[in-house]
């Protein structure tokens, strides 16, 4: 934002200063009356002159399963960073439903508010057991004083049991997470997102390094989640994308190159050019 614009922003007469307004809260219901749950509009991010995202526009519908593909450096991970609050965009806006402005929230608020994120490399708390991993992620009061004095209640424990079944780790619940196989860690991390009861799941390369059987199970898991949650999957594995995708977005150089069904996208001459480098 230019400094003149910033100055004008301060002197706007139609609203009071931000700091006298109550802190933005997530307790309002996410408003998805018009379909999309996530509005990413005109978002640009640059790092030292390199445009990681360039005027990106994308809308994710409530309950949708969306796959995002694109060559390396297309801005897939940056897009996730921006949505989850890790990176602040230079311009543009991101709305969660119609009323929640994600750019005004910090990472932990966004996570509590219902947007879960799985990292590219499976990241679980290795020193803790599978159950404790889920316990930590479970939606509950996450303030310092509360966690010092309170354990989970029965309802929250039931939810953990349910998710354990969903991700197929019921028998391993006491095992140290560090001792799990690579695929199991990926599932545990997805489980950690699920116990947060998110509306939107951002899943970065869920099947990287998995065996064929594990890939199948993961595909099954992710498709079963769509409907109840909106799922955004970033993946390189085209066969996997084909097996789960209903709608695919292709990113290239920080903006959307093509969007549509897998067949449409694969026959798009621009996409072919980017991928095959004609």
């Amino acid at each position: 934002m230019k400094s003149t614009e910033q100055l004008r922003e301060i002197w706007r007469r139609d609203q009071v200063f931000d700091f006298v307004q109550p802190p933005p809260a997530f307790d309002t219901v996410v408003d998805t009356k018009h379909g999309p749950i996530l509005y990413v509009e005109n978002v640009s991010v640059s790092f030292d002159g390199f445009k990681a995202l360039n005027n990106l526009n994308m809308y994710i519908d409530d309950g949708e399963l969306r796959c995002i593909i694109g060559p390396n450096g297309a801005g897939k991970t940056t897009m996730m960073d921006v949505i989850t609050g890790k990176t602040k965009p230079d311009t543009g806006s991101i709305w969660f439903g119609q009323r929640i402005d994600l750019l005004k929230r910090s990472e932990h608020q966004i996570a509590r508010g219902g947007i879960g994120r799985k990292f590219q490399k499976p990241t679980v708390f290795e020193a803790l057991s599978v159950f404790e991993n889920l316990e930590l992620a479970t939606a509950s009061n996450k303030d310092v004083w509360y966690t010092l004095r309170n354990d989970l209640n029965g309802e929250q424990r039931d939810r953990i049991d349910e998710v354990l079944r969903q991700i197929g780790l019921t028998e391993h619940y006491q095992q140290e997470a560090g001792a799990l196989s690579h695929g199991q860690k990926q599932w545990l991390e997805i489980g950690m997102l699920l116990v947060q009861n998110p509306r939107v799941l951002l899943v970065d390369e869920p099947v990287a390094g998995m065996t064929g059987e594990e890939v199948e199970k993961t595909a099954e898991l992710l498709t079963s989640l769509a409907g109840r949650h909106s799922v955004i999957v970033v993946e390189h594995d085209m066969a996997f994308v084909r097996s789960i995708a209903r709608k695919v977005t292709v990113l290239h150089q920080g903006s959307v190159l093509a969007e549509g069904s897998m067949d449409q996208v694969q026959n798009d001459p621009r996409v072919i050019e980017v991928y095959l480098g004609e």
Partner: protein
Amino acid sequence: MLIQRLLLSDRGGMWVLGLVALLAIAVPVLNLALPPESPFYVSNFTVGLLGKFLCFALLALSVDLIWGYAGILSLGHGAFFTLGGYGMGMYLMRQIGDRGVYGHPELMDFMVVLNWESLPWYWQGFDMFWFAMLMVLLVPGLLALVFGWLAFRSRVTGVYFAIITQALTYALMLAFFRNEMGFGGNNGLNDFKEILGFSLSAKSTRAGLMVASALALIIGYLACRYIVTSRMGRVIVSIRDAESRTRFSGYKVESYKLWLFVFSAMLAAVAGALYVPQVGIINPGEFSPLNSIEMVVWVATGGRGTLFGALVGAFTVNYAKTFFTTFSPETWLFILGSLFVLVTLFMPKGLVGLAARLLGKGDK
């Protein structure tokens, strides 16, 4: 019962705390009740030494809590320890009254030398024990709060955090060396007479202070144990192992780090406050960065990430220090350095980890 719950799954801790309790009962009895000729008599020197070690153990506990559990390496915990010590020192100075060398009813000797007319504002109130103790907790706690807030909010971690904590304690050392600061400059605070009306040179007072240190250590241990076994403790371990995962699970990582850091600083301050009446002096040398590094060596040697490991480390290294500085003072620093290198290379889990490994093998 709460204490039972806290110690049930912590057998090492039970043993170490049991030993501390035993020392706290047996040593004063053997010191006070037996005549010096008796073979079981414990000398005054030993009582003082043990009291000192108990304070160091509490200090090590505070370092372990923040380093072993949250993964925040603070190389400036000596600052909080020393500030706590100064708080107690100021109380003890005010107790001297007009018995100083210059006999001034209100001013300390060093203030008379500086030609000061009246007591500076920050010395007010320190004649009251409760106020001094409140300050012992509040001043280091507040410093940790402000310092930690700035550091954690900007996401300063790892070696950068370690360096700025070193800078903090070094800056405080330079400041306290100045006479104009009003803390006795180079010489610090010394020549204490009595605490709560008990003469500091009396045998019973010294034994009492040792028991108080043991009690503080036990209570501090249980408090730390309460934290690390709670859900908060598990959040803290997760922050250590995967900070961004914790953040994206909806935890405000900065707050967790900050409050743990403040609590740890207060523990260190209590250790300092108990240390000062037992050694009879506090001076800016205690702020020296080297001291803070030594604390980290205690914890590393004992075994970080287990609370009782910190106690084991503090006792072992300090016993070795006493031993070596008596027999060959010039070698001690070399021994300390090589100890740190050896522990880092060959015993990443410290003495406690080594013992666990040996015992584990014995079982099979």
